[in-house]
């Protein structure tokens, strides 16, 4: 029995090639690389955990995958379930089917038993016998004691029973690697230090990565197995959706070695290191710059904006645009980045600067401006020494010297020093849009005698903390 990973299976017609299917999945899920299963012709299956979380659930993922495959024409079936077999059966439904978690057994119950022989899971004569005995559906077979099935039909019987009960019968975490993707390094002398071992495997890893690169591929998942002279073994799977460089693979090797050699009582030196590449991706979609870094160019940024906007909504990804004004927290407005041509550097630079004729706004606080603007201003009350509430007069003078502040949560804090009040009267000629506010800077003592300067605003008779200098 193997641990099951929730997966999505897509059945597609002859109009889609496997390469096209992989490209679509890479595009939709962004994490397509590991644990991908396929017969190479008309279905492909991949784990959904990461992509589902990103897209907001299995249903959205399934709908998105189906939409993309539909654009190729022909019939498409999409199914999501806990095990590979159930996902495969779900994909055979006429509509997109998402089997709820841990409900594979219930979903499979009404499926006819004949399916097992059609899919070559079990010999057809065995299925014929079972049907003659009265077991017509997977659900009916699931109720039989598996010991009886094992005694009567051997391993085939047990396999069928596990399938009917929604258990995973094959290793789905990753497919078996091809021989040429396995590299071994046997050390003549047992090595004790992580640095020595990493140095020893460097040439082999370099060769492995360059071999893959010659076929335009990047390794996205590999297993590193280490063995000591006393046959102690450490195996770990490393995965990175964008693909490993040789340096990154060696870095992972160093992490694994350091953890293993330090955390466990390894009794002998390492004599063998084996790298198995389990999954790759085409490298042409990820053009690295001259020194192997991401170039971080405008094109990358545009792609990022697209991805983030699709995931979190267009309003979630913004660029700052100069607006001016006297409000220290709203000098820049946020504009959705989707609406802006990011490759036009001059345009984006122009957005950030005040117009030539625009000087500093009278009433805007001088530098430094508060680093954190509170999205929900906090209501507070100011008190003087005699515990009378402090306000301002018509001439914008304080009624008393503020000494204490009572925060929204009831905490009473001392005011160390203060300045203001500074009145701002805007659009007084328009009764509807007119605003009259008063600003102040105060420094209060937080816990452990920390000095915390904040910006206050008096609006409609209430003092608010609108920003803080952190």
């Amino acid at each position, binding site marked *: 029995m193997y641990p099951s990973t929730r997966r999505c299976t897509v059945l597609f017609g002859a109009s889609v090639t496997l390469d096209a299917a992989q490209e679509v999945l890479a595009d939709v899920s962004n994490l397509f690389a590991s644990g991908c299963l396929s017969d190479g012709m008309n279905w492909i299956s991949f784990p959904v955990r990461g992509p589902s979380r990103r897209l907001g659930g299995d249903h959205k993922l399934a709908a998105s995958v189906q939409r993309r495959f539909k654009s190729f024409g022909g019939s498409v079936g999409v199914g999501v379930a806990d095990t590979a077999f159930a996902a495969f059966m779900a994909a055979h439904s006429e509509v997109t089917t998402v089997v709820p978690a841990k409900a594979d057994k219930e979903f499979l119950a009404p499926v006819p038993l004949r399916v097992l022989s059609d899919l070559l899971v079990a010999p057809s004569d065995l299925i014929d016998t079972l049907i003659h005995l009265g077991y017509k559906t997977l659900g009916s077979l699931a109720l039989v004691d598996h010991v009886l099935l094992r005694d009567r039909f051997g391993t085939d019987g047990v396999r069928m029973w596990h399938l009917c009960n929604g258990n995973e019968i094959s290793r789905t975490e990753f497919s078996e690697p091809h021989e040429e993707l396995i590299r071994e390094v046997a050390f003549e002398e047992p090595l004790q230090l992580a640095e020595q071992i990493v140095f020893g495997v460097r040439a082999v890893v370099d060769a492995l990565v360059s071999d893959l690169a010659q076929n335009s591929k990047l390794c996205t998942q590999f297993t590193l197995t280490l063995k000591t002279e006393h046959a102690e073994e450490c195996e770990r799977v490393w995965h990175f959706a964008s693909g490993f460089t040789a340096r990154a693979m060696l870095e992972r090797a160093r992490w694994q070695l350091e953890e293993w050699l330090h955390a466990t009582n390894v009794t002998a030196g390492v004599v063998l290191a084996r790298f198995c590449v389990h999954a790759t991706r085409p490298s042409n979609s990820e053009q690295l710059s001259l020194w192997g870094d991401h170039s971080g160019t405008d094109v*990358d940024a545009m792609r990022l*904006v697209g991805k*983030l906007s699709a995931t979190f909504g267009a309003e979630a990804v913004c660029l700052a645009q100069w607006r001016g004004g006297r409000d220290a927290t709203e000098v820049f407005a946020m504009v959705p980045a989707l609406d802006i041509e990011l490759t036009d550097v001059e345009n984006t630079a122009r957005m950030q600067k005040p117009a030539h004729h625009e000087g500093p706004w009278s009433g805007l606080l001088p530098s430094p401006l508060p680093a954190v603007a509170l*999205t929900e201003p906090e209501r507070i009350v100011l008190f003087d020494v005699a515990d009378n509430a402090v306000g301002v007069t018509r001439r914008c003078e304080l009624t008393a010297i503020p000494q204490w502040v009572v925060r929204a949560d009831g905490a009473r804090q001392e005011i160390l*020093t203060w300045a203001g009040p500074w009145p701002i009267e805007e659009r007084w000629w328009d009764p509807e849009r007119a605003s009259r506010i008063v600003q102040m800077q105060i420094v209060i003592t937080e816990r452990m005698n920390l000095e915390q300067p904040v910006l206050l605003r008096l609006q409609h008779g209430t003092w608010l903390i609108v920003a803080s200098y952190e």
Partner: protein
Amino acid sequence: MASGSDPARVLNGVDGLASGVPGVFKASALTERLIRLPEEVAEAFPDLGLTRGRTISCHGGSAVSLGLRLLASACHAGGWCAVVSRTRSINPAAAREAGVALERTLWITADDLGVATALCLDSCAVVLVHGVVALRDARRLQARANNCSSTLILLNSDFAQADIVFETTNERWEGLLGGYGYLMHRDLKLHVRVRHAAPMSPKQLRLHHVSIHT
């Protein structure tokens, strides 16, 4: 104070760089693997700078201002920056004062900081995260940043396994005189802890600010 050792000039990356032509820095982004750091902390590093791909954690009373200074230093060489938070919290005007290139900065709000930051690390040279990231996510993001050679700055996350941890204490503000004046600048103590390195003695630092109109 001589201009070469003035912390404000170094922190703001002035020396004629801040107002430079964007295209020039884009070209150098390919070759520059080292990020210039404030002079006081640069001493802690063998190359007097920070190699790309590292994770920095800032906490303390002036974490946000310090994080913005580091963001400004890291984005000078070119490439895009991203500021990720759950709600719009960081003031872009303060970022501009710190020297951040706003024309190459994306402001992202997302409930799931981990996912948004992971996506940003793939495409941006520097990513600043304001908000608490779960320890498990922080470790993954650190590995991803390392792989992508992007710099990750975590604010107020208290991520002790970061490659570099900055902590600010003893902030003293100057400028307010009991009813008169304005907040001007602050003195603070900066504690730097570099992973796998001997602890450094705290540095006394004064943070100045440059007006956004200049």
